[in-house]
């Protein structure tokens, strides 16, 4: 099984992190909109938004590393 198994590459990991960051970013905004307080961010939400942006940027930095195993 090990020889034919799919190994995650740096590029795949980067794409995964970008997707996770985007999902988190949209999720936080959506939750805020559902509560009816869109744009009125508290410190925890601001931190979470910054974190999701950071995750996306980290993912982007891995994309050029190509097919090396993560």
């Amino acid at each position, binding site marked *: *099984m*090990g020889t034919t*198994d*799919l*190994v*995650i590459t740096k590029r795949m990991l980067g794409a995964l992190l970008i997707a996770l960051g985007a999902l988190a970013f949209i999720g936080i905004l959506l939750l805020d909109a559902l509560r009816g307080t869109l744009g009125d961010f508290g410190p*925890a939400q601001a931190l979470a938004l910054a974190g999701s942006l950071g995750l996306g940027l980290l993912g982007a*930095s891995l994309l050029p590393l190509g097919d090396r*195993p*993560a």
Partner: protein
Amino acid sequence: MIGTLESARSAQRALLIAQRALLGIALLFMALHLAVYFVYAAHLIAFPFDYDQGEGFELNDTILLSQFQSPYRDNAVYPFYASNYPPLYHVILVPFAWLFGAEYWYGRLVSFVTTLITAAAIGYAVQRDTGQRIVALLSGCAFLASNYIYHIGPLFRQHISMIMLETLAVVVIAPLSQSARPRRLILLSLALLLAAGYTKQLAVATVAAVFIWLFLRGVRRAIAWAIPFAAIAGGLFLLIDWSTGGQWWLNIITANVNQYILGQYVGLLAQFVALHGALLLLAGLMLVYELYFDRLSVYSVWFVAAMLNTVLAGKWGAGDSYFATAIAAMCILAGIFAGRTLGNAWRLPRLLAGMQRAMPALSVAVCAAFVLYSAAVIKLPLDMPIFAQIAQLLGLQSNTKFPNFYDSAGWTMGYATLGQIPTAQDIANGWRIVEYAKADPRPILSEEAAFSFRSGKPVVTNPTQLLNLYNNNTAERTLYDPAALIAMIEARAFSAVILRREIGQTAIIGFYPPPVLAAIERAYTLHQAIPMNGYEYTVLLPSAERNLP
């Protein structure tokens, strides 16, 4: 030319001397930390009462299990008690309970031993990866030296056993790619993870880390192992929930959903970085190296997951112990970084090839990091021989609420105020409180179970559990109804109420839900306030003007 070579050689010699001197200083510091930790543990193991609020309730869980009773009970029914932790740590202690009865020493001894095993596992992981014995030794000691590990190491609490099981699980699976028997490693690691999760729920982050790492290394294999693991862990969970009539879910999941205090987390995170910064830097560099220039090790993935999990330290009732898993991961990564540097064992990519020349200087820097860390985490009892002289030499004075204890951590919200060595007066005062508990055959209502155990009475209530559930009551659902407990208080069914508060406070303060505290104020009168372990224990007796039942 000869002069240049000579000066280069003498510079290298100077760096080597500096490196060895720094390693020697770090080892000396670690020896001091170990001595302080062993003395602290020995005193705690001998201490006959709760040292940390909640220890007695874990002892009660052990006693209940030793009598084949479930600790996951209905909080609204006498004795209004339920545990909010999974049972494995308490199950392990059951044979001790059969042999020695309700005693604190064996739970604390087992916890202390688990910290030594964790430190040994950290050292072993570093030694296996780098072959650097001194660095391996320093890495293991660094775990024990942390103020946070020192705090909880020898307590009758399940948290540190979880850390041991998590660390062993990660160390076992780390060499998976080089193993001739990978299935065996995975099986053992997952068994340890299952045990960690059933010791404390917080282990879920390490479970996630191991599966994420397995996923990176082989998607199909990770999924193939995740399915049976989830089935066993989930099946066990459902079985316990079914056998306790839903009390398992209510008490270990619902009761742990508490108010989140961002300021508490930010304060603890700042303190954590200030204390552990030197080794965090090395661990961070190792993580970055693996992320961009090598494959991610399970240690790096674990470190990230554990750091993310520290966010939960902002929950009411949580604290510095929530950083303990991250500390174990940090010690391994920092140790591997230091070991590879000292052993000149880096496989540097072309981009970093120039770094090779800087290795001797970098070696000095990593040794200095261990010295800085050792100096940053100093905590000392100030009234014991040798330690008192060392404190004097270093110019350290008490900076805590205890006159004979120095703690470099200072204090922030959520940081447990303990670490001092209990005095003979503390023990004598504890027995004075027990005398009040013994004075009347009725049960007592105590925020700490020790006074019930020592007076041979049943343990009634787990106050923080009642408070957590009460705070989660909504208009639609009642998780805890204090009516029955309030009725007993108003009927003076308890011979004494024992609450804990900060010295200097005058109000009736406690961990009970507000209506319970209000009932206590109505039916009981403050009789005496007895100091113990830096707190004041208020002994309240039934109000004289009311009729006794």
